[in-house]
């Protein structure tokens, strides 16, 4: 059991509990979203004592040096004094420049940031409606191509943020951006390596960014893109991706659904995407894989691809964690 000092109060953190659990229990309003160490909404600062290394995962070195840590993944091993961080300084403001419908429940959102913003296609940021409501989304655009950041946002049932984006947000509206984070992006140096990109739902967003990044950097190896959904209406950007595959002989696009219904999408494969993936690439040894989307599926795929012979270091996984 360790003690936590916050705003001149001392609290006891029970074994296994996190700083976030403890503060919320005590009635303090701490911004938070994913509670899984990804969105960085709950970033706080330690002013006395040390926090476990895992609670600083994904933060910039300069932030770590200042004692920043994520309250949701911090189970302190010693007594600590902590304070809130002025999150305004971590966010930059942006305005909506374009909204277009990609499918029944997915919209493409383009925003323009007011400051210089460095990122890699495939990384994610947390978008903030206001000081309290934020959600993480992967970046589908390339930094070199335009000043706009592009996201694919699915309308989650009862989702606070996605509901706002789908129902209320208009071109010209303001929001703010925090990040980027994540290591799911294309790295140069092996242009001949074959790539296996698998995404479900809006897991396509980071892959869309990665595939364009790879092509821009002159990738010569095969690039297989598997996009999965329950049924054909869940797929989007199909025409554009088919065109991309026609323009680049090393790009192969595999639209996949559990139930094909009476779809006319060309080359549509019906079945479990993890099965289709290993039928497409039975021996992934030497391949680099990017897996994005549904948390359980990403976990399953990661294991299957590793067991089929891929190096663990060649598998990049970006599981989408649903906020409560």
């Amino acid at each position, binding site marked *: 059991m360790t003690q936590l000092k916050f705003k001149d109060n001392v609290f006891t953190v029970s074994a296994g509990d996190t700083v976030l659990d403890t503060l919320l229990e005590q009635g303090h309003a701490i911004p938070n979203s994913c509670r899984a160490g990804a969105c960085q909404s709950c970033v706080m600062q330690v002013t006395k004592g040390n926090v476990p290394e895992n609670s600083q995962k994904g933060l910039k070195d300069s932030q770590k040096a200042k004692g920043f840590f994520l309250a949701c993944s911090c189970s302190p091993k010693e007594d600590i004094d902590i304070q809130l961080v002025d999150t305004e300084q971590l966010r930059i403001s942006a305005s909506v420049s374009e909204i277009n419908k990609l499918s029944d429940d997915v919209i493409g959102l383009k925003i323009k940031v007011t400051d210089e913003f460095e990122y890699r296609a495939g990384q994610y940021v947390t978008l903030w409606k206001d000081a309290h409501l934020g959600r993480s989304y992967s970046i589908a655009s390339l930094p070199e191509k335009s000043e706009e950041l592009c996201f694919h946002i699915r309308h989650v049932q009862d989702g606070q943020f996605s509901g706002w984006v789908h129902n209320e947000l208009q071109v010209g509206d303001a929001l703010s951006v925090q990040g980027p984070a994540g290591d799911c992006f294309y790295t140069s140096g092996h242009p001949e390596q074959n790539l296996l990109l698998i995404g479900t739902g809006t897991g396509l967003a980071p892959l869309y960014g990665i595939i364009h990044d790879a092509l821009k950097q002159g990738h010569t190896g095969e690039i297989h893109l598997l996009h999965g959904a329950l049924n054909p209406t869940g797929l989007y950007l199909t025409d554009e991706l088919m065109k991309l595959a026609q323009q680049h002989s090393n790009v192969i696009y595999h639209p996949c659904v559990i139930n094909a219904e009476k779809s006319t999408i060309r080359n549509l494969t019906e079945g479990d995407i993890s099965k289709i993936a290993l039928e497409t690439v039975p021996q992934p040894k030497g391949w680099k894989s990017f897996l994005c989307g549904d948390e359980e599926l990403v976990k399953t795929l*990661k*294991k299957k691809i*590793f*067991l089929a*012979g891929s*190096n*663990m270091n060649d598998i990049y996984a970006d599981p989408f964690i649903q906020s409560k």
Partner: protein
Amino acid sequence: MTTLFERIGGEAAVDAAVDIFYRKVLSDDRVNGFFDDVDMEAQAAKQKGFLTMVFGGPNNYTGKDMREGHKNLVANGLNDSHVDAIVELLGETLKELGVADSDIAEIAGIANGARDDVLNR
């Protein structure tokens, strides 16, 4: 006189062994049930620590760590047969990598030396 760790190739040997070994562990129905819900990257890092130890390399493992780390698994049925399976898979991994039989025996000896701590007895 070279040490075991130097003979088998040091840290590079650990790196070469970890994926092969972990793949064998996850594919083996005798033991893979214990790894169903673990985070693969975190587990691979632990396997690396384990391999470094049994290869006679620099490590910070203590008997206490071994006991703590396996306590819950012992409560869930971890026993000698599972340790035997792990030592066997370790041997197969090393054979694939071309490690000499005498060195494999020495490594198995170090792994077996941790048996009582792992099984919390």
